[in-house]
């Protein structure tokens, strides 16, 4: 007969020896569930790659409208990303550092572009520029005062991209400043600084990783924007066409090969951008 492993001590009966068992099932289940999503993305890209060929790429790249779309995409995404960081840095800082009445409302408003269907953003921009106010509208004012069109023109592309991308940039900058200890800025103020100088000389230099991450995320969001551009800027060839609308336009005329080639260009651009974020901004975003 085996002796019972339990023994009696001054603190009572001790628990019998126990083996925790293997962790393999845990990793199999967790890895299996999580890995299915990774597998989906990889197989989608692999399918695109299998469908296309170098000839499809060169054919797509030789089209003047696609060449123009690439340039407009690069320029509009860059302008939109720069505008986003210009706005997101002060806004992210204010939301991170100060508690004030109604902050929750500002938080909610900023998150609207993140949760709204993209088409609604485009529609809302269209309405904003064409709503009659005092016998005129914003579009008319832009044409009369500044001499350029917005709706269904290149500025509409930038504005549509900015409206969504900026929300993501603000979130990134807010997290960035949340992670920077405010105490150093306070000490700077005791040393004779005004708040503005403490921000510029102490907080901002520490936020450079977040700034790079926010610019990159805003650029990537702008690259992927489709709905607001379609509604507010249209998808006019050689005018307001960007890569995301190129895919739509090529599909609509049955040019599946060109659509896939352009899609893969966007995948490469997105991967490059995300690679930069991982390299530079990981500490800030996580």
């Amino acid at each position, binding site marked *: 007969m085996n002796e019972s492993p339990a023994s009696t001590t001054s603190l009572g009966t001790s628990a019998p020896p126990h083996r925790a068992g293997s962790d393999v099932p845990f990793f199999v289940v967790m890895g299996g569930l999580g890995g299915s999503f990774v597998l989906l993305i990889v197989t989608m890209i692999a399918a695109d790659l299998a469908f296309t060929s170098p000839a499809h790429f060169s054919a797509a790249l030789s089209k003047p409208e696609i060449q123009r779309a690439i340039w407009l995409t690069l320029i509009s995404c860059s302008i939109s990303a720069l505008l986003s960081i210009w706005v997101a840095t002060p806004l992210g800082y204010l939301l991170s550092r100060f508690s004030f009445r109604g902050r929750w409302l500002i938080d909610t408003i900023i998150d609207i572009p993140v949760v709204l269907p993209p088409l609604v953003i485009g529609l809302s921009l269209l309405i904003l520029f064409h709503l009659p106010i005092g016998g005129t509208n914003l579009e008319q004012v832009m044409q009369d005062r500044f001499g350029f069109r917005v709706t269904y023109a290149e500025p509409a592309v930038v504005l549509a991209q900015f409206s969504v991308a900026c929300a993501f940039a603000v979130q990134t900058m807010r997290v960035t400043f949340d992670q920077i200890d405010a105490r*150093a800025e306070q000490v700077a103020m005791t040393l*004779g600084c005004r708040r503005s100088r403490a921000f510029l000389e*102490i907080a901002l230099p*520490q936020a450079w990783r977040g700034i790079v991450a926010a610019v990159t995320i805003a650029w990537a969001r702008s690259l992927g924007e489709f709905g607001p551009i379609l509604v507010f800027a249209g998808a006019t060839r050689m005018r307001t066409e960007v890569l995301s609308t190129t895919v739509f336009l090529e599909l609509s005329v049955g040019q599946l090969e060109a659509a896939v080639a352009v899609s893969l260009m966007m995948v490469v651009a997105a991967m490059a951008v995300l690679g930069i974020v991982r390299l530079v901004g990981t500490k800030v975003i996580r």
Partner: protein
Amino acid sequence: MIELHDITIRSGPFLLTNVGMTIPDGTYAVLMGGTGQGKTTILEAICGLRTVTRGQVFLNGDDITRWKPGDRGVGYVPQDLALFPMMTVRGHLEFALRVRHCSRGLIRDRVAELAHVLGIESLLARRVTNLSGGEAQRVALGRALSFRPRVLLLDEPLNALDEATRDRLCQLLRSIQKQSGLTTLHITHARTEARLLAEKLFVLDAGQLHERPLTELTHPIAGSTEA
């Protein structure tokens, strides 16, 4: 001279009421008390980093209760030191002087003098992110002293240092204070540190701030440790 006249400080649910304190010119005062009693809050109120909802704060006779932190002339060393991660040691010593638009010559001379007194000449070009605990404390102290403040406020500045480093820094603090005649308020939990430095002792206990005789430092005080 630091005077607190029945000040009330509120910070969220935390409330400190009717705090009074007088530290005469050139005195080294030590403030002790348990964790969470509000010692740091008092220091921050003197710095202008916390709003005083009632009462008055005087520095050298000036009512500074509503002054901005930068106008008060307070040298402050916070508990976590809060060094500026992107700056060199020299940058820290120059910072307050640059803010005051001091001449290059004056800045150079003051930095050299401070670096010599604090024994950090060899560190001037280093980034602060890779300094030892004792070196970082000296830099924070140098930054606070750089603009010749009216008073010096130290929030547990010698915490987390080994005994030898702490003793050396205690002597340094004492000699700097004697030479400059700077009115100093120093928060600590350590009775040894307090015995070495204090000319005046205050204890914050259950929201009440009292002055106590230095002889009490031979016995345990609420929230204090021997070392």
